[in-house]
């Protein structure tokens, strides 16, 4: 099994794995990210660490011998209603997709194209619109169907036709070039969208298996993945078992996301957050994925568990209602006053118990086009005096009550309350409007419903992917509801392949900072907690944990 671990090292995660086993460095990484006392844990080689790449591995680097696990049980905190490949993305589905299916590729910053293959052998960018992808010629699904270019094209085109994602309409076509090669073509010149489809949007199955399935794979999944679904109780448990006939026979070529280090995995759906830790403590599950920081805190000091803290794929931000007639219309100083009054570090401490990182730009630092220089630039550093000055110079009417709207979650509830108390200190009164998700989605485009929005956004590939949120498209407004021609120019520029230059991106970031349309507050960690005999975990680029790829030691019995 040493070899598999070695394979993990090879995928460009050298720097992270090297951190492991070195408790002092580990401690540094932790304190800078505000992670709690892992350095104090004894021996240092069993420590958690912050996976700065947020992508693949949080290996603890223990010397303990690894072994194939027989039976593993993992708690996931979202309900899964549907296992089909191309249905609409819910958290529950996303947490399982990469175990159930394989994608063409995965993000790899070490590779020239930024991608490495899972089903894909190699790829080549033909022009701004097109990517040519060649897959391995030896791919078979668990029913023995041979996967060819025809199937890949079928998957992409069916996915686009189903239209369950906003990205579907971007695909022009996926056409067969030869038996194992396809051209994926977009109808728009946009950065990162083909890669996104290949790595996270379009799971690949064979057409034969899909068409012979009686339920469009809603329950009966047949895929090329190293795991086969053997039992599924909707809303409760999903059991998968290792496919002994996995198509990739050359172990050195198996992607880090297609390992099968456990023979059998049972996913247990535990939707009540406080019950996740109970399940772990009572040994019902061995792995608890996506635990809240409040729950994970308890395990950090317990030697029987390993806590893996990973920089999350989401960051929390606020935006202002800049529509005409809105409170913040044409008043950047007022907006800035609000930002300066908010102590992001205080939120990190108060809401996430230190398990988050203060943001420096509208996008996560893990993005490939993130400019490290932004980290040292001024970004609304907490300064209550400055906030008061700006507020005074803005001439804003401070007697009006600011309505802060947010989707109701326990994290948002706490954040909104803290922001409310910060704003009170500069004399602004707020009313909190926490809505359930559906209501929030409806109201966020309605100018009359809110003054400030508090929410989170995912940022995993390019910071410019989020430029679309500021773009006016048809009758859909920007998230800040502003009508600003210069902003529109910049956002469409940086989203195109041609305009995606460092200079333009800086101009775009600088402009939204100057105008203060959005304020990124912090990036929260994701916590995965395992029994101490599980020595390392692998998460995909969105932070979802893959129990099949985890590193099990000999002590792990089941």
């Amino acid at each position, binding site marked *: 099994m040493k070899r598999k671990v070695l394979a993990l090292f090879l995928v460009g995660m050298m720097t992270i794995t090297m951190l492991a086993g070195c408790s002092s460095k580990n401690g540094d990484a932790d304190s800078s990210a505000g992670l709690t006392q892992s350095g104090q844990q004894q021996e240092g080689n069993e420590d958690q660490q912050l996976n700065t790449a947020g992508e693949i591995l949080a290996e603890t680097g223990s010397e303990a011998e690894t072994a194939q696990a027989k039976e593993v049980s993992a708690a996931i905190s979202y309900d899964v209603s549907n296992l089909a490949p191309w249905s609409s993305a819910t958290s529950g589905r996303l947490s399982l997709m990469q175990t159930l299916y394989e994608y063409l590729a995965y993000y790899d910053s070490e590779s020239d194209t930024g991608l490495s293959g899972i089903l894909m052998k190699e790829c080549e960018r033909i022009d701004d619109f097109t990517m040519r992808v060649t897959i391995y010629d030896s791919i078979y699904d668990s029913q023995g169907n041979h996967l060819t270019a025809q199937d890949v094209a079928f998957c992409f085109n069916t996915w686009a036709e189903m239209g369950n994602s906003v990205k579907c309409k971007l695909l022009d076509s996926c056409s067969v070039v030869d038996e194992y090669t396809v051209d994926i073509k977009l109808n728009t010149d946009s950065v990162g969208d083909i890669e996104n489809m290949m790595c996270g949007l379009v799971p690949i199955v064979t057409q034969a298996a899909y068409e012979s399935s009686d339920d469009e794979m809603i329950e009966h999944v047949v895929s090329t993945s190293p795991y086969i679904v053997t039992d599924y109780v909707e809303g409760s448990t999903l059991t998968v078992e290792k496919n002994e006939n996995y198509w990739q026979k050359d172990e050195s070529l198996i992607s880090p996301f297609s390992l099968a280090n456990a023979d059998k995995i049972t996913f247990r759906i535990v939707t009540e957050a406080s019950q996740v830790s109970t399940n772990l403590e009572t040994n019902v599950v061995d792995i608890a994925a996506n635990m809240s920081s409040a729950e994970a805190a308890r395990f950090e000091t317990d030697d029987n568990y390993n806590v893996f803290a990973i920089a999350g794929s989401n960051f929390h931000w606020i935006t202002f209602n800049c529509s005409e007639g809105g409170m913040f219309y044409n008043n950047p100083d007022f907006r800035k006053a609000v930002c300066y009054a908010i102590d992001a570090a205080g939120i990190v401490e108060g809401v996430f118990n230190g398990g988050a990182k203060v943001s420096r730009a509208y996008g996560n630092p893990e993005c490939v086009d993130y400019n490290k220089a932004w980290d040292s630039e001024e970004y609304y550093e907490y300064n209550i005096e400055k906030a008061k000055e700006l507020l005074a110079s803005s001439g804003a009417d401070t007697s009006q009550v600011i309505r802060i709207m947010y989707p109701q979650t326990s994290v948002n509830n706490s954040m909104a309350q803290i922001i409310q*108390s910060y704003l009170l200190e500069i004399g602004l009164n707020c009313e909190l*409007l926490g809505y359930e998700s559906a209501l929030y989605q409806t109201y966020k485009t309605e100018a009359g419903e809110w003054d400030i929005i508090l929410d989170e956004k995912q940022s995993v590939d390019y910071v410019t992917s989020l430029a679309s949120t500021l773009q006016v498209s048809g009758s859909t407004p920007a998230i800040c509801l502003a009508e600003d021609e210069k902003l529109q120019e910049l956002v469409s520029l940086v989203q195109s392949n041609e305009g995606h230059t460092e200079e333009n991106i800086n101009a775009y970031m600088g402009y939204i900072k100057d105008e203060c349309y959005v304020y990124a507050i912090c990036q929260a960690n994701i916590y995965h907690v395992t029994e101490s005999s599980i020595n390392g975990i692998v998460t995909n680029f969105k932070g979802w944990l893959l129990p099949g790829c985890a590193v099990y030691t000999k002590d792990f019995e089941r």
Partner: protein
Amino acid sequence: MDKRYKSESQALAVLKRMSRNKASLTGLVILSILILIALLAAWIMPYSYTKMDMANRFAKPSFQHLFGCDELGRDILSRLIYGARYSLILGLGSVGLSVIFGLMLGSAAGFFGGIVDSVIMRFLDIFSSIPGMLMAVVISAVLGSGFGNCILAISVSTMPQYVRLLRAQIMSIRNMEYLEASATLQNCSKLRIIVKHVLPNSLSSLIVTATMGVASSILMAAGLSYVGLGVQPPNPEWGAMLSGARSYLRDYPHMVIFPGIVLAVTVLSLNMLGDGLRDALDPKLKK
């Protein structure tokens, strides 16, 4: 003159009977204290209920903070004291609203009978075969969460029992002779009859149901908070406090235990009072 004297003596008798029941008396005392606390909340809170103190996050109970502090460093005792307003108003408000609905529909059905009655009763059949909690959830979703909306959602979903109760009461007395007499003698309007005669007669059973209704409304609000549709923060409604703190049950039990105990004691008092009142008001159970 004669009538008033009689009703006073009845009330006295009820009170006397009730006072023999220690449990309901205890309930009454606790509730009176709670109402007093709610009224005086602004003056007796040791701290402001929204005042955050990051240095005191999760502080254990101490002399400074008798019940400790919550995840944002707010004094839990102060929040509970101020929260008494929210929880009690929520309970009383939703029952009050249900009673008003119940009165309108129930008296219309009971008094006018015939088609009005059947229409209202079929409507109630429809309404009460939709699960109450789901009804509350859906209505909260329609209106958005918030204090007033929470009251409305709970009262709509508990309304059918009040309509039924009032209708039955009115049915049972509307044919009584004194009503007919007053109708013919004094040429009373129907509304006048409802207000002057029907209501006082239905009052006893209404009080019992309402007392227990307040209890279950408070619990229902806690359930709504649990599914994310309750009272908005930072308002310290007890159910919202309780459900918001449940993640800290293991590490900082004081955050969950104190709101839980206060809520349970309140609901228990209401239930004990309700039981005592029912026994006292039930002529069949007279000793």
